[in-house]
């Protein structure tokens, strides 16, 4: 109570009304912005390294992928600035609209308007050769929606309210499962679990949900719910990747994991040096500029560079966690936790699969992997966190 009293004492209504925005901007989390920027910068360099020789052999400019990624970065930053400027409480009001819009996009992508890439119908084709993946943006929409709903009940989530929260998540999860995009499904599950834990779900409920989740995965593997392709990815992780057996689907995934591990390990302590990785420059790692971008860091920058990259993510996690704690309301806290969960689950899954300790699922490394939808979504998420952090006193 004293703390609240002191806070009220120090702030005058006059101050607040005269220069509200200036005061607010002063609380912008520069550390988070710098860490985010550095990660994006590392991404640009790594994409350049991964694509230059391949592009050159096709006769294209070595910089063409880097230029596109830079464009995504600029677009994402623009949207993030917009996100920061709008008071997050306005998002709370319009949460349902945002959510329903995202769900509509997911329905639309399953229609003939969507296109299939890598076995999943997850994309809209935009003019200029760009693709957009609505599942990415839906992640933020679900975070906002669940946070908005859970925060209205101030940390008291009984079974009925919990069920509503799960329902909010279940609709997009179901739609994304139809694409099918198993990786994104897992991200949504992680986001829901993370937000619900902080939102005040009962521990026994969470325990039961976890058990159901585990049973669900086992059940999916037992019954023929998953496609062979998805099952291969999961079972390869379990059965190991020692044999390189090209030709069948399983072999190519083993090959992918084996080449990816080889690349990371070949870096050693200090790496082969930028643009000097034999695995990277030789194009031995499939999907390297997107999902396997971490192998470039691993091979060319070694343990020192890889650990440094993880450290940057650590800084981002620390700042978001800090924002979550300092947020002036539960909605803000839950948004921060949702964004944090979204980012950290992807980092752990992505880096983990690169090193062979997680199954191969098509998840990008946030801010670093080549790809517009992921970049923009991540930056909007960071924008939300900055927004909440900045307005912690208002």
């Amino acid at each position, binding site marked *: 109570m004293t703390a609240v009293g002191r806070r009220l004492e120090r702030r005058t209504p006059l101050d607040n009304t005269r220069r509200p925005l200036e005061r607010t901007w002063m609380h912008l989390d520069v550390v988070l912005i710098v860490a985010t920027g550095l990660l994006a910068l590392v991404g640009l360099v790594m994409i350049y390294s991964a694509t230059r*020789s391949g592009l050159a*052999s096709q006769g294209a400019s070595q910089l063409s992928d880097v230029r596109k990624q830079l464009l995504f970065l600029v677009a994402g930053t623009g949207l993030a600035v917009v996100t920061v400027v709008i008071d997050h409480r306005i998002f709370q009001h319009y949460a349902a609209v945002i959510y329903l819009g995202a769900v509509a996009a997911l329905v639309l992508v399953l229609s003939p308007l969507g296109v299939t890439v890598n076995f999943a119908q997850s994309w809209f084709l935009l003019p200029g050769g760009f693709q957009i993946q609505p599942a990415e943006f839906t992640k933020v929409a679900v975070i906002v929606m669940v946070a908005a709903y859970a925060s209205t009940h101030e*940390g*008291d989530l009984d079974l009925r309210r919990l069920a509503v929260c799960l329902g909010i998540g279940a609709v997009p999860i179901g739609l994304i499962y139809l694409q099918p995009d198993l990786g994104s499904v897992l991200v949504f599950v992680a986001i829901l679990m*993370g937000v619900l*834990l*902080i939102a*005040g779900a009962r521990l026994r409920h969470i325990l039961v949900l976890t058990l159901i989740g585990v049973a669900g995965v086992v059940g999916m593997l037992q019954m023929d719910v998953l496609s062979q392709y998805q099952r291969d990815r999961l079972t390869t992780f379990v059965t190991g990747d020692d044999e390189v057996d090209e030709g069948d689907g399983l072999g190519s995934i083993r090959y992918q994991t084996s*080449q990816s*591990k*080889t*690349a*990371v*390990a*070949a*870096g*050693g*302590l200090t790496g082969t040096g930028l643009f000097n990785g*034999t*695995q990277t*420059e*030789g*194009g*031995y790692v499939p999907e390297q500029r997107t999902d396997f971008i971490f192998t470039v860091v*691993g*091979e060319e920058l*070694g*343990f020192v560079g*890889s*650990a440094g990259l*993880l450290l940057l*993510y*650590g800084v981002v*996690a620390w700042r978001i*966690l800090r924002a*979550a*704690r300092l947020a002036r309301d*539960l909605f803000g*806290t839950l948004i921060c*936790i949702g964004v*944090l969960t979204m980012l*950290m689950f992807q*980092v*752990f899954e992505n*880096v*983990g699969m690169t*090193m*062979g*300790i997680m199954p191969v699922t098509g998840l990008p490394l946030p801010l670093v992997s080549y790809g517009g939808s992921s970049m923009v979504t991540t930056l909007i998420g960071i924008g939300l966190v900055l927004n909440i952090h900045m307005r912690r006193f208002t």
Partner: protein
Amino acid sequence: MTVDSPRLRIGVYGVVVVSLFAALLARLWYLQVLSAEEFQVAAITNAERVVYEEAPRGRILDRNSVELVRNRVSQSVAIDTAEVSSAELQTSLNNLSSLFGVEKSVLEDRLEDPRATPYTAITVLEEVDEVKAVHIGERQDEYPGVVTLDVTTREYPYGSLAAHVLGYVGEINDTELAADPETYRPGDHVGKSGVEQAYEADLRGTPGRTVYEVGADGVPLRVKERTAPVPGDDVVLSIDLKVQQVAEQSLEATLIERRSTATDDKTGLHKADAGSVVVLDDTTGEVIAMASWPTYDPGEFVDGISQARYEELTDEGNGAPLTNRATSGGYAPGSTWKLVTATAALQSGLITGASTYDDRGTYEIPDCEAQCEFQNIDGVGSGRVNVSTALQVSSDVFFYDLGYRFYRERESISEDRNEVGGNAFDDTAEQLGFGASPGLDIGGDAAGSVANPEQRRSLHDQYPDKFPTRAWYPGDDVNLAIGQGDLVVTPLQLANAYATVANGGTRFSPNVGLEVREPGGGPTVRTVAPRVANQTVLSAEVRDPIMTGLSLVTTGQGTGAGAFAGWPRADYEVGGKTGTAEAGNRQADGTRTKQDTSLFVGVGPMDDPKYVVAVVMEQSGRGASAAAPVARAVMGQVSGVEPSIP
């Protein structure tokens, strides 16, 4: 739920995030630091390909540094299939086909070369016209992916000259590859015979090595490491170009000339189908010239030779031009062998230089059983002769008598012809290098054989069908004494035996190589030292009567006097020995399957012998008529007394 609950839960959440990061870092440490080595090896083998480039072979020079074999840069047309689409490839093949007038299917076959790799263009045409090569270079749109390459090939400025000595180069075969897999790779060129083969290690050089880093699709990304090829060293031979030229020209011309002369028995003309010349420096064992006819052009092997052509070159019916008769031709030496009989008789004390015998034209073996009477080639006696004059006029009877006396000298003689032992004659033949390979540095030198009782018995016991006779008779020794009978020698052996007597008893293993030099006229890398195979001291009592006899051959009543008529003896005294050897087998009608072999071995100068010239000509008649004139021409050149080529 307490108010602090969200805060606590955020704390728990933070711990989860930290432990996930810890897991990633631990795995990263394990992969990159603890087990990096095994993965690094995998990454390197993943990404490296090595391409070798053959080094230019060293040159082969004569003793005066004249190029006998050199390298020539020629143009090849190759297609870089990795660079072009299949439509472009068809365009190129069609245009190449019409430009060079080669069937398109032929080009397509060559593209199927199993040795082809994506790192090098595949050669489809060799030795192309330079103007056409330039044309291709200027019209790359008509010839997509086609490149012209400078290829170094062997060139023989003197054509077939010394072909058997130089040998030839060809693509390595599986056996050669298996013998030295460290040094060679499929497609390499290696020396197949002669100097090219024997001095392969010097001539070869060190191939260039380029390590490419390649992508997953096998396309080279960059050069990681490159070592330039190191050219092979030059090999200098003891061969003298001019002497070699005279030997070959004179041999060929005389053989052809002999074909228009009648045989002694007037049954027809001489066939004169093959022959050889060996010139040795008797003080060192250096081979100054070595010719064999018929011959071949080693240039034929440069671009690979067809199986049919190779069979032609090795066919006995064509005289097997690939065979070096100087080193592997086996002949009865005829009277040239009398050197051996004389040396053995003088050495063993059977006779002295003063011992005489009355040659009445015929010789009858005492206590004879079967064939008892032997006669001189014309049946005419020479009267009383000593060893020197017997050599001069080639008295067979004198040597028949020595043959019989050698028989009597054998260690054990019994009524059982199977118990006959060895004697000094056998020993001398061995000392002078017969019955064993001379040890020529470039190899290919046959051992020949000299019959003796022990050898005959063991051959019979091993192969009773092939060698029906086991017993040793007096007639065997009598026949051997004049170089007939169970006797096979090579021209090189014959020359080497004369060289041994001429220099006083040192038998060298002859060398064709003189020294190895760094490429392009650089300093000497190593010298091929003379090699002594056998050392005996021939005393003046042994050597002098023989040298006198050899000297007399080219004068007065000597068998070689005609051939050497007009030779400036005062300036350069030359000696020698003629030989006319029966060849082939006797047929039912009394004629033989082959005409007589004509032989001559010359030595000069007689006061301090330096050169030995051995000439052997198949089916050419008397030694004096065919071989001796050739020997004179060669001796004239090597001595500088009568040079045909200034």
